[in-house]
């Protein structure tokens, strides 16, 4: 082997977390190689020109959770990070609508149209969630301690967190407890009465999660989504100019700036393990690369059940990984449009096209959608979180044309009878029909349609079961238990083999956090 193939660290997977880890390690002077199976970087955070002239954030579509220090330390704005605010959330209803915008007064009035009490409560709700988010942030920024055999630094970290919790007011602690355990519907019921408001807010509690808004545990996912932070403003969602892939590209450019080597179309077959140590990787094409350490940005199932042989791992660990819940429940429909959707309840072009559009008219609608999936079908009338990137960034589509990104739930990975082309198209039709209920012109303006089922997400992006978070965000799969007890600090039972994907603490979303913390753990900074 020529010495050129020897690296300090190899990162498997050019998703945004893998790239983040690579950037941090390179920044610390390590010689790093990133290996990406596909021809494009970004993993689930990727932009592709799916149809000529129409660019899509194919999978992950909004940015809110990106950690500010990652953006600064990796100099991402210099390398192309440019987040445009999504200024509103629009929920079309039959004959009316609900609109929430960046202007507090306007939002107050809009909600007050439906319920004055809710409008008042809403003013208090956001700041409270911000406070809770602030209370939780130290947990997210701590490397999860080993709960079985805590080291001294684990104990110190735990002590710091306990001390932090003592500073919370009783009220905050109570809300935090509720958020960790309740359903988002129940949590919101305590605050609001206007159902479309509640159901739309609850929707962030089901995104990427195989639960309904009335399922206990969904409130935590809602909180997870509330911790978005753009320009220091909590809960501000943003759209990356040029599509989400540009976030990954910015990180990739940063990594290269610091000296990392990035290879695409380099599919890793397995990690080479010798005497319980990772020593490199073998590619599908037979090439081998040697390194002092290997870091996997893949999900836990792939990292441990595919990349290494089971015999290399302790059996209780294998059992934990097998028990790790990673049910895919969402699909993505990307539409190339000849114009803008015209909503019956708010005709014409307007502010509502510039923000998120949520198809979530009431709890029963969402629960019905969930019930379909629970019993193995895709939702006949699905929940959708929609944005029109071309309104914010005209370069995403040819002049006058538009791209529309529909995140869709529920589409179970384990569909009864399995996914096939017919089912995929039927799923796509269900999405378009659900949209047409509120924007009847949609059927006439669709030029192209890309439908991604969870099975497609698995095939294309290597997301096991198509789960966008690399494992569900349930209480028993968080912190010291993510992905498995004792191995929640980015290490693995194999020496010199590390993990840095969303399947590790603190979980999914475009945060950069697992990648950053894994790198810092490796470098011994934490």
């Amino acid at each position, binding site marked *: 082997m020529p010495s050129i193939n020897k690296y300090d660290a190899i990162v498997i997977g050019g998703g945004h977390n893998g790239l983040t880890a690579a950037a941090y390690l390179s920044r610390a002077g390590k010689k790093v190689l990133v290996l990406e199976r596909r021809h494009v970087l970004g993993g689930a955070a990727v932009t592709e020109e799916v149809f000529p002239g129409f660019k899509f954030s194919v999978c992950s579509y909004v940015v809110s959770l990106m950690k500010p220090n990652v953006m600064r330390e990796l100099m991402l704005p210099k390398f192309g990070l440019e987040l445009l605010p999504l200024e509103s959330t629009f929920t079309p209803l039959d004959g009316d609508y609900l609109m929430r915008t960046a202007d507090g007064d306007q939002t107050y009035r809009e909600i007050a149209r439906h319920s004055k009490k809710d409008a008042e409560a809403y003013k208090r709700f956001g700041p409270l969630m911000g406070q809770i988010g602030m209370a939780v942030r130290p947990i997210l920024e701590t490397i999860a301690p080993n*709960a*079985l*055999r805590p080291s001294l630094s684990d104990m110190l970290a735990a002590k710091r967190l306990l001390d932090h*919790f*003592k500073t*919370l007011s*009783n*009220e905050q*602690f*109570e809300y935090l*407890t*509720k958020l*960790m*355990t*309740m359903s988002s519907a*129940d949590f919101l019921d*305590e605050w609001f009465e206007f159902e479309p408001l509640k159901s739309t807010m609850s929707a962030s509690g089901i995104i990427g999660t195989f*639960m*309904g808004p*009335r*399922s*206990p*545990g969904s409130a935590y996912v809602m909180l997870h989504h509330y911790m978005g932070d753009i320009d220091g403003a909590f809960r501000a969602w943003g759209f990356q100019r040029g599509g989400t892939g540009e976030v990954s590209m910015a990180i990739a450019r940063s990594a290269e700036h610091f000296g990392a080597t990035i290879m695409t179309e380099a599919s890793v077959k397995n990690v080479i393990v010798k005497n319980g140590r990772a020593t490199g990787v073998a590619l599908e094409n037979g090439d081998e690369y040697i390194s002092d350490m290997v870091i996997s940005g893949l999900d836990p199932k792939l990292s441990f059940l595919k990349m290494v042989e089971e015999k290399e791992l302790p059996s209780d660990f294998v059992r934990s990984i097998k*028990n790790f*819940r990673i049910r895919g429940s969402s699909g993505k429909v990307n539409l190339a449009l000849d114009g803008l959707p015209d909503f019956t309840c708010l005709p014409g072009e307007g502010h509502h096209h510039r923000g998120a559009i949520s198809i979530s008219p009431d*709890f*029963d609608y969402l*629960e019905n959608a969930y*019930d379909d999936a*629970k*019993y193995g079908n895709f939702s006949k009338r699905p929940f959708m979180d929609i944005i029109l990137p071309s309104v914010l960034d005209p370069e995403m589509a040819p002049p006058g044309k538009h791209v529309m990104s529909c995140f869709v739930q529920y589409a179970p990975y384990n569909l009864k009878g399995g996914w096939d082309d017919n089912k995929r198209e039927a799923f796509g039709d269900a999405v378009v029909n659900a949209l047409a209920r509120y924007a009847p012109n949609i059927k006439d303006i669709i030029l192209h349609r890309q439908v991604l089922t969870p099975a497609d997400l698995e095939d294309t992006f290597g997301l096991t079961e198509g789960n966008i978070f690399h494992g569900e965000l*349930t*209480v*028993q799969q968080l912190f*010291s*238990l993510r992905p498995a*007890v004792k191995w929640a600090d980015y290490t693995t039972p194999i020496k010199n083999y590390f993990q840095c994907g969303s399947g590790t603490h603190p979980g999914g979303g475009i945060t950069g956090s697992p990648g950053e913390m894994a790198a810092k753990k490796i470098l011994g900074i934490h």
Partner: protein
Amino acid sequence: MAQYDIIVIGSGINSLVAASIIAKAGKKVLVLEAREKIGGLASTNEFAPGFQCNAIYDTLKWIDPRIIKELQIQSQGLELIEMDIKRIALGEKENKHIIFHKDPLLTSDSIADHSREDSKKWIDFTTHIEKLTKFLEKLYQLAPPSLPDIGLLDALSMRSLLGPLMGQGPQGLVNLARTAPMMMPELMDEWFENELLRSALSTAGTHGLSYGPYASGTGYNFLHQHLHSKGIIHNSSSVKGGTGAFPAILNNILSSNNADVRTRVKVTSINIKNNVCEGVTTLEGEEILSNQVISGLDPQSTFINLVGNQNLDPSFHTQIKNIKYRGSTARIHFALKDMPKIEGVNEDQMNTVFSISPSMEYLEKASDAVKYGFISENPYVEFSIPSTVNPEFSPDGKHVLTASVQYAPYHLSDSDWDQSSKEQLKQNTIQVLEKKIPDITKLIENSVVHSPKDLEDEFGLTEGNLNHGEMTLDQLLFMRPTASSSQYSTPFKNLFLCGPGTHPGGGLHGMNGYNAAKKVLKG
């Protein structure tokens, strides 16, 4: 001048336990019961001429061992009948049932008929569950610590948890932390493949809840049902003379300790002056003064109905208002002309508990009804024939079959709980029973349906919830009933709580009453 040291409102098991412990300590105690007889949810009633039933609970799952010891209830005459067969989960195929024996090896054999793999894991599973419940057994004996600023005393009081911790190591706690928030399919996926078994176990996780097995937190409820069961799954025992014998014995203890027990006295107000509780007022207008008052009623009844909104601080009012009840379990008592026959079940096995839930999906579908506010079309039915254990429940040769039916939500979206909805619930139940007891319709000579609304009217249970508040993770420990009143005390001086709405929740175990009594006595 106070007439009593303590007034206890209500005479359910917890109230009677609290009253007994306090009376034994030499205090002057008065128990007030609105119904004509004591016992609350542990009562035994005549529901049709010559036919008796256990109002709510046909079996006891566990009793706080401290109560058994301190009140010596067994030497006072409480006779528990331990069955060898704890439960039979009726399978869809005629005679393929799973029989849960007291002896796990026999259960394992029964499971082997369905799945060899599952059978092999059974003993490990029961050991696993037993270990997890060890923590809860200790935790349940404590008043939950006040969080987040847990004090040294609180922390010291939790030292009893060190026992199981030493025994099992941190892995035990980790397992508990993993299992409690689980949904039943997660727990089952980790152990078993056979659907009947998975479903039969899941019914313990959904017992008394408004949720189905796919709800996180059902893992916790499963553990809650198995405390002090020594790993015997679906452990329970019957009471000789009917469940009502239990309160009767506590009543004897009370009278021998100089306590007054008055029935048909409905408390209409808990009297508060300057945030201090001074006694109660009854429906007849009688004002009874006491140094302290303990309410065995649920939080809604205690604070909203009896203390009154005007005395509640706004934030406490909000907390009380936010407690979720959502009773979804109905009880149907059938008077039968003869002993029903179930294929694959011997006559001598009829004294156990039967469950009809062929799959988890069946159970989950039944629970969907709650979300949309209708009565399950194919409900989960759990039944027993108490007249096999207590023959005096029915005339000779005849029998009583009592079914607990989930899900019958308190809040119906399109109707009230009137005769026709009750009739619908009954028909749905009969149609489920018919699959196992084909001639059930012919056997029925009388029946009575207790919807959650009836349970509310009869027993003062808010929304008919038997646990005085849902047993979900957000309403446990230091959150039960609210974060500001989780240690049996209330925002009001001299007013305490002892009902299932407090830690550690519902069932006829008496722990809440015992813990509350100790708290009151400590002062």
